[in-house]
């Protein structure tokens, strides 16, 4: 177990090397966020106190929460790095060493997130401070707890999905298009662009059968108190099931891939 702690440690250090890159990313990401908030303000200024059960403060807070959850759980460049490891033969060493590649990558993912949070926390906190009148506490203590649990599950789900996706590199030379296609679906169907309960009911029902809402929308709606009681408990179980499924898929893809794998060079 200790060896993986070393991995996390090294991961944090190497990630902090790019701290200015992280900082620039965070600052730039405020521009579309602010634009989105302004757009919704204009909508509310045009009339209507509530849209789909969100008043103006709630919709602004929704986007702020999405930004927070994104910083905490999003896969940054892990999928690209994994694909590059496979393509360039770097994974050969993991076949020889007593280190499990998936656990190794998970450690790097965690350290990447920690480094990112360290760099993004201050500017993000400042940004949220500017919109403090819209910020609401979690709906209840119960909601806060469930939110934290769901946050961890969200991160795991994102990571295992990306990992499984990156395994395609065993078969294909160039997988960035697939990564972007998946990302597009995630962006829309996980609630990045708008709260999912704004969609027509039929679409909402269809989405409920996919893992996407559990990659963003689910934890956010727990925090906002829009998911309570049996729906919350059931949702957490479904999320857990999706994490397990993504994990198994990731493992399965690795085992299939490794049979196909032929390392070039030394």
């Amino acid at each position, binding site marked *: 177990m200790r060896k993986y702690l070393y991995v996390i440690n090294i991961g944090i250090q190497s990630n902090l090397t790019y701290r200015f*890159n992280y900082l620039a990313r965070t600052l730039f990401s405020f*521009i579309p966020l*602010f634009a989105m908030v302004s757009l919704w303000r204009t909508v509310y200024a045009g009339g209507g106190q509530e849209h789909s059960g969100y008043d103006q403060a709630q919709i602004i807070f929704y986007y702020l929460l999405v930004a927070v959850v994104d910083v905490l759980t999003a896969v940054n460049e892990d999928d690209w790095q994994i694909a590059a490891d496979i393509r360039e033969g770097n994974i050969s060493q993991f076949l020889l060493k007593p280190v499990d590649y998936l656990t190794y990558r998970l450690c790097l993912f965690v350290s990447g997130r920690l480094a990112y949070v360290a760099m993004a926390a201050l500017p993000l906190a400042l940004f949220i401070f500017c919109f403090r009148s819209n910020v609401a506490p979690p709906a209840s203590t119960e909601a806060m707890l469930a939110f934290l649990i769901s946050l961890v599950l969200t991160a795991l789900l994102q990571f295992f999905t990306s990992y499984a996706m990156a395994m395609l590199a065993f078969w294909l030379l160039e997988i960035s298009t697939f990564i972007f*296609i998946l990302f597009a679906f995630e962006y829309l169907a996980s609630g990045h662009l708008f709260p999912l309960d704004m969609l027509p009911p039929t679409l909402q029902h269809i989405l409920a059968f996919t893992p996407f809402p559990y990659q963003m929308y689910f934890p956010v709606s727990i925090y906002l108190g829009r998911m309570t009681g049996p729906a919350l408990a059931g949702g957490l179980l479904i999320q857990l099931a999706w994490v397990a499924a993504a994990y198994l898929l990731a493992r399965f893809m690795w085992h299939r891939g490794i049979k196909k794998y032929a390392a070039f060079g030394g």
Partner: protein
Amino acid sequence: MNLKRYLLLYVALWKNSVTREMSFKGNFLLWIVVELLWFGLQLSFVGVLFRQTQVVGTWNQWQMVMLVGASNFIQQVYQAFFLTNCTNLSELIRTGKMDFLLLLPVNTRFIVSLRQVDLGAFINALFGLCVMIYAAAKLQLHPGLLTVLGFGCLCFVGVLIHYSLMFMLAAIGFWTVRAQGIVWGYYNLFNIARMPDEAFHGVFKAMFTFALPVLLVSNVPVCLLADKLVSPAALLSLLALGLVWAAISEWFWRFSLRHYTSASS
């Protein structure tokens, strides 16, 4: 004579790009799909937005669709000619391949900016155009020839502005070596380009109207086409800012080129 030589050169660059793209046909098609999906994403956002409201400021649904279509069109045309080249610039500097380009007996900015053509982007630009035409039909617009020509000119200026700005950002790579993060950051600005300028106020609006005029880039042409132009001021400021930024960008390019210290040996 000189112009003819550059035209011939450009034709050769095109041939090169076609050959390159056609050697990865599957990938070529997939990139078109990727861009199309993101375009669809933006349109679906407009769809959801207008389930909630009738108007955003003074913009109705089909005017917004037109705005998204126009900004996609401008972005894709820009992407077709310049994007790959702008992002490659920092790589040219880092690896020292810039030496080779400096030695060629042509204008360096010409060869750096136009070396590769992204053919898939033309197809995506076409989708943008189709959406705009559909929206225009829904709005029952019947623009005259002059309006359409004006729209085309404004789009051209928009592409020029995107290019001037991003080329400058990429030229920062002469100092920081890894400027890809900065170039990526510009991508966020495309996000604002497809929003109605009425949504913004104060410092933010001033900044993205004058300092980085991305807000004007697609708003002004669509306003012209949809008869939303209140005064010619917006039109003139887009033209003026296009010229100003082209000049600044050229000056900055010459200035930063002097800071080039080759990477090798």
